[in-house]
């Protein structure tokens, strides 16, 4: 059990690159904390600093108030699970799990008892005398988990532990890890590049980009109120549509439609004029033909040409091509997010999430509705969110998804 505090932590490597810049946050005792970001954002470096495999260049890491900057990894009593599992190929499953206890010179009968307990929890009892080479990917993953659990550490550190599993197993292990963490109640820091994993597992998430923490919050906060364009594009699948727009007096000009600004929007925009970036979640669109007048009046409608339709069963995604080319800033952002399925902003293409009953067809025109209360506004220059001063944002976490679901 441990509270992990990071106090202005930075990491610079010998060649001058700064992997982590001034990270300050506290991971609470028993929390499931996620570090997420595209590859190369410094999330693994941060994890390695917490566990002690990398030196801290600047700042302080404290565990339960005690500075651990100079504590050897073996003395931090933290357990780590990595992407490659790193189970020892020359030892049996039993020896692998017992390894940390044997190093700690625990009594033989205690070691045997703990190994059996852990094996039972992870359903490894029948495999204890096998070698890692005889195990499947999922079983190896479990052995790695077992080796972490067995010594009852202060904290679990996981570095993309599910990335090597196939899609189905990944979902299954995700649930298992979540359940295990809840049962054990041990502080867990979990690194991933997968926003779905981050959203489903985390109590709280820190999003990193180029070594800088972009935003820290619960999955709901990040989804409903992304602090900047990067977070907006990273969280959510399919990704938020990010569009170049202009504020012209009392009108917000989107590439496909002009939106007259109401008081709520005006309060957020304040005196900004000219270019802004507008973010629209796919679910903030609707098929106008399916909506009643009352809902239609709360947004604007526009007609669009549908390029591709992905029918998912419970919903469908309509990809709409816009003639407007995107701005340079958004293209750059898209490239950075590019590795992700989120794809981000390079589209001159919108994605709209529609009800499965909508008869939208590829190649045809459709009348789309856009919920003007659900727009996210960002400053073009900084990418920061435009928010009402001190006030609660218009988009409410609890009502947001329901309010914009298309009428059934």
């Amino acid at each position, binding site marked *: 059990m441990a509270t992990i505090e990071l106090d202005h932590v930075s990491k610079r490597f010998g060649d001058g690159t700064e992997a982590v810049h001034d990270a300050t946050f506290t991971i609470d005792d028993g929390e499931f904390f996620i570090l997420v970001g595209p590859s190369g954002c410094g999330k693994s470096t941060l994890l390695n600093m917490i566990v002690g495999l990398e030196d801290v260049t600047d700042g302080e890491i404290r565990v339960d108030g005690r500075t651990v900057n100079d504590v050897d990894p*073996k003395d931090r009593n933290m*357990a*780590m699970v990595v992407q490659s599992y*790193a189970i020892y190929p*020359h030892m049996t499953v039993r020896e692998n799990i017992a390894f940390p206890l044997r190093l700690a010179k625990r009594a033989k009968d205690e070691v045997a008892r703990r190994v059996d307990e852990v094996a039972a929890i992870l359903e490894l009892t029948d495999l204890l005398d096998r070698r890692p080479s005889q195990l499947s990917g999922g079983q190896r993953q479990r052995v790695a988990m077992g*080796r972490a659990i067995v010594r009852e550490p202060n904290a679990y550190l996981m570095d993309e532990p599910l990335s090597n599993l196939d899609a189905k197993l990944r979902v299954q292990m995700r649930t298992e890890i979540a359940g295990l963490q809840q049962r054990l109640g041990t502080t867990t820091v979990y690194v991933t590049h997968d926003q779905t994993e981050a959203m489903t597992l985390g109590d709280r998430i820190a999003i990193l980009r180029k070594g800088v923490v972009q935003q820290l919050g619960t999955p709901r906060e990040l989804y409903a109120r992304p602090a900047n364009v990067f977070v907006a594009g990273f969280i959510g699948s399919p990704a938020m549509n990010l569009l170049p727009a202009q504020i012209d007096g009392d009108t917000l000009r989107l590439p496909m439609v002009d939106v007259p600004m109401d008081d709520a929007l005006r309060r957020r925009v304040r005196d900004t004029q000219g270019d802004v970036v507008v973010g629209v979640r796919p679910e903030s669109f609707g098929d106008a033909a399916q909506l009643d007048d009352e809902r239609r009046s709360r947004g604007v409608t526009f007609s669009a040409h549908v390029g591709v339709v992905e029918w998912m069963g419970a919903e469908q995604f309509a990809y709409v091509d816009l003639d407007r080319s995107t701005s340079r800033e958004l293209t750059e952002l898209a490239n950075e997010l590019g590795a992700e399925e989120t794809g981000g902003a390079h589209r001159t293409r919108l994605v709209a999430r529609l009800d499965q009953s909508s008869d939208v067809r590829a190649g045809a025109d459709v009348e789309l509705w856009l919920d003007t209360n659900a727009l996210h506004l960002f400053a073009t220059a900084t990418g920061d969110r435009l928010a009402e001063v001190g006030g609660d944002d218009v988009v409410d976490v609890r009502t947001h998804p329901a309010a914009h679901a298309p009428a059934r």
Partner: protein
Amino acid sequence: MEGRVGAGKKVLWGLAALAVAAYALLPVAWVVSLSLKPGSELSDGSFLPKSPTLDNFRAVFKDPQFPAALRNSLGIAAISTVVAVLLAMFAAYAIVRLDFPGKRLVLGGALAIAMFPAISIVGPLFNMWRSLGLYDTWAGLIIPYMTFTLPLAIWTLSAFFREIPWDLDKAARVDGATPFQAFRKVIAPLAAPGVFTAAILVFIFAWNDFLFAITLTSTNSARTVPAALAFFTGASQFEQPTGSIAAASVIVTIPIVIVVLLFQRRIVAGLTSGAVKG
């Protein structure tokens, strides 16, 4: 059709292999034959001894210098092997895992030493060893053997260590191991095939060396078998000790043959590992 081509190929390959084996083993067979011939048959030129006898072997062991040389050979080769492999393990691990200035220099230097002609240093070494008191001692031979085998051992072992994922060292460290424990309990066992390969190569080098042994020793206290063979004398000054030399040669070849037969799979695996990513 295809089957016949396959069979034809097999026959051809078999014949080629046979030819190579015969070419390589004929001298060995000749030495074995010589060692079994009594003195009267030594120069008769026949391939098989007419009346095979173990007299030569008995004679070799009766000569006090041979058992002494055998002891020296075993001791010196064993110590050289253990020390060289141990040092090479540490050096290779450091080279693979650590980033330190002069790393390339160490590797390059090691390679240069391995290519250095030994004959060019035996003269100076002879003088140095005389003044340092290392002449005609075990250490006097162990040191040059290590020098010449360390590079090969370091290169072989680095290839092996490079194959071991870094995550394993890190996992061991986080699991509570000191850096040395991580090395001893995780890395070294995984590199065992490489250690075997390196050990065998070092052992064979030390066991077979003639140049250093003949130059840097003078008595039974450190003279190894290859050097001792040169000092065998016949029964009289008019008689060549051919039979004894042949018998002694057979005796010193046996350990190497056994070792290689036992570990040939490992050696092949060791020599080729790192060449292709498995």
